[in-house]
């Protein structure tokens, strides 16, 4: 072997070494080296006012993560443009991921220090004292890991109502998120024209709903549609039925854990029976192939009487057919109209800031601008959320339709439920609507109720 060969070999190895070093030295945005030091984990900047010259004058790219929701993303793009115009040194880098992938993207990007502002759903599913062996929810783990900034005392937090901040954005007395709106998922859209054409009123009891479905189907129309291809819209569509049977959903979760309530008691079996009717008889054929996003255009065609789903579908429905005459009412799951007056739902999108963001000032400025009452009002109008700022009103078609029920708004089962470790796949009976044919194999509601309780009990017994 000649000396030149040895040298070439060494040069190749050196090149590999340099390549490795170059790959490993990326510490993100170059501006990070000149930015103010990040605040300690879970703490707000000691003083948001100082050092405007150094920090705020630097060109900053603020990385923002949200989940896919067409009206919201459209609003965000417009808001970002306006924010960049008023803050010329800040550029917004907006990432949009599917709602189901938000928690994965949030966790990985927070852990990698690759995000500044994250969209985060309202805090829910906290492990309660009676939940033996329950694993804490993801948002709690993120806070305990010091990955979310403590924004307690920031002026913009006061723009939101206290209950929202306490229920959906706080942990151990500190605020980590501002929540931007509540949504209801337990109601249904009602096609007023179709009901009127068939001489029907908006149903207020289960019996009236069954009758209305029979009448519209006899007239050659469809009773209900829902985005069944995505799975979850099927059981979310039946959350109103669950709410009508068990109006105190927090108590329902506790009862299931303590054994005071079971999925196979008489009341639950009746609920399972009605869920089967909803799935097998009320939903139109072919919904197994209809995606959630395709639901509103299908419904706006006008030949379907009801679409049980969340209020977040209202903008898409209006966009699909502006002249379509609809209202939104609680799903009448009970024979007693008094039980059918509640809207159940959840705190939806919120904002949180990464604790180790290299641009805390810019991130806080972003949230402050977003929380300005005018901007927030425009956001609420765009996405159809029930506002969480007391000065805002839902001045839309949806807002007017749900106004009579807002006094009866309650957080739903989905936000309280935590499955015991070791519970089987049928343990969450609130999803039973999606387990009946044609979506799954069950055709006997009594057998399914019994299986749901057995799967739950197996988990309870294992802890």
């Amino acid at each position, binding site marked *: 072997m000649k000396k030149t060969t040895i040298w070439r070999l060494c040069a190749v190895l050196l090149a590999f070494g340099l390549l490795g070093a170059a790959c490993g030295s990326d510490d993100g945005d170059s501006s990070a080296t000149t930015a103010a030091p990040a605040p300690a984990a879970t703490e707000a900047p000691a003083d948001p006012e100082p050092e405007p010259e150094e920090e705020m004058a630097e060109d900053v790219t603020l990385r923002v993560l949200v989940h896919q929701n067409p009206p919201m993303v459209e609003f965000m793009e417009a808001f970002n443009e306006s924010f960049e115009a008023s803050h010329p040194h800040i550029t917004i880098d907006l990432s949009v991921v599917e709602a189901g992938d938000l928690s994965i993207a949030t966790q990985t990007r927070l852990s990698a220090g690759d995000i500044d502002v994250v969209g985060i759903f309202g805090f829910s599913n906290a492990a309660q004292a009676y939940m033996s062996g329950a694993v804490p929810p993801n948002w709690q783990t993120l806070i305990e890991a010091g990955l979310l900034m403590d924004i307690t005392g920031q002026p913009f937090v006061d723009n939101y109502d206290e209950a929202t901040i306490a229920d959906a954005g706080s942990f151990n007395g500190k605020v980590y998120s501002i929540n931007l709106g509540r949504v209801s998922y337990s109601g249904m859209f009602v096609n007023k024209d179709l009901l009127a054409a068939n001489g029907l009123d908006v149903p207020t009891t289960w019996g009236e709903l069954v009758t209305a479905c029979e009448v519209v189907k006899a007239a050659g129309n469809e009773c209900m549609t829902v985005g069944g291809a995505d799975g979850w819209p099927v059981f979310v569509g039946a959350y109103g039925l669950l709410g009508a049977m068990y109006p105190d959903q927090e108590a329902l979760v506790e009862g299931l854990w303590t054994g005071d309530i079971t999925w196979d008691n008489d009341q639950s079996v009746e609920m399972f029976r009605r869920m089967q009717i909803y799935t097998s008889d009320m939903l139109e054929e072919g919904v197994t192939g209809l995606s959630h996003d395709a639901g509103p255009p299908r419904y706006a065609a006008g030949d379907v009487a009801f679409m049980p789903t969340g209020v977040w579908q209202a903008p898409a429905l209006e966009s699909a057919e502006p002249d379509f005459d609809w209202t939104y009412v609680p799903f009448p799951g009970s024979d007693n109209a008094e039980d059918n007056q509640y809207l159940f739902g959840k705190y939806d999108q919120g904002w949180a800031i990464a604790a180790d963001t290299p641009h805390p000032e810019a991130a806080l400025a972003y949230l402050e601008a977003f929380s300005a009452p005018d901007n927030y009002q425009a956001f609420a109008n765009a996405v159809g959320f029930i506002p969480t700022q007391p000065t805002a009103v839902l001045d839309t078609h949806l807002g007017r339709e749900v106004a009579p029920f807002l006094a009866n708004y309650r957080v739903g089962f989905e936000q309280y439920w935590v499955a015991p470790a070791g519970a089987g796949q049928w343990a969450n009976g609130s999803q039973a609507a999606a387990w009946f044919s044609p979506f799954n*194999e069950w055709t006997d509601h009594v057998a399914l109720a019994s299986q749901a309780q057995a799967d739950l009990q197996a988990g309870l017994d294992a802890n």
Partner: protein
Amino acid sequence: MPAPPPLINSSESTGRMKIVTRDYLFARGWKSAAPILLLLPGFGLYLLIAVGPSLATAVYSFTDATGIRGIAINWLGFENYDEFLFRGAASRDNIAALRRTLIFCFFVTTIQFCLGLLLAVLLNTRLRGRTIFRTIFFMPVILGVAIQGLIWKLFLLPGGGPVAEMFSWIGWSSEFLGGQPRQAFAWVIVVQIWANVGITMVIFLAGMQTIPESLYEAARIDGASGWQLFRNVTWPLLTPAVNTNFLLNIVGSLQAWQLFLVLIGYRPGTQVLGYLVFAEGFGQTSGSVSSAFRQGYAAAASIALFMLVLIIALAANAFVSRREKKYLS
């Protein structure tokens, strides 16, 4: 008759050519380290990218790791394995997922292997337009899983999709991916085969093109029929390609899960073990809200999957080795 050319390690030379001697590449002394030095970067990358994470997964499987930076990781011993295999009704679902994985592997391996071989035989003839057909059959391989899934979601729309339309001609109807778990599962098998049969076909084709034409000519002179040509010439000499495809199909189908995610999502009665690992590790088990990230538990599940793949792959390897000896030794 001229003498055969000397071996490469010979130090002699002929009048026709200068022979490259062994000590050019593998010299004595410290120079002999050259091959090792050349291998080092690749070996280092292999350790870093393949062996390291595998060992880390094995270690994580004994902990309550969440994958979230800043959270303490606690040693649990065999608790994750105990929960995965024996605890409550969830263990029943895990075993069912394991059984489903084996069923998936059996059908995908069998059908993909046979279909790939059939296509290769057909496209190894002087068929007109065979290059176009080879391209068409191979094309799904280069598509990403998300694209493959989206294409088939459109094909399989229950209301008016192309497949539903064809079914209606013969009086059939199906809910396809959104319907009964068994139906949905069967359709994922179909898509998995469609997505990967191209690579099976190409490996067979490559194997067939190494078989000397003279063997076929000799067999034809002896009066061999088409089936006899395949049975006695093609099949034995295709042994390396057969073995490669057999192992690749088994391992690939045991590890498959992405198509389940894209086509079905997390639905009771449809998960395979690979999807279970993903769902547990990234909080996707609730069906709607995000559940906790249980990456230690998911690591235990992935070790169970690894053991399954290892046992089946070792058995398959022993089988194909025997077969190789039988035909090629």
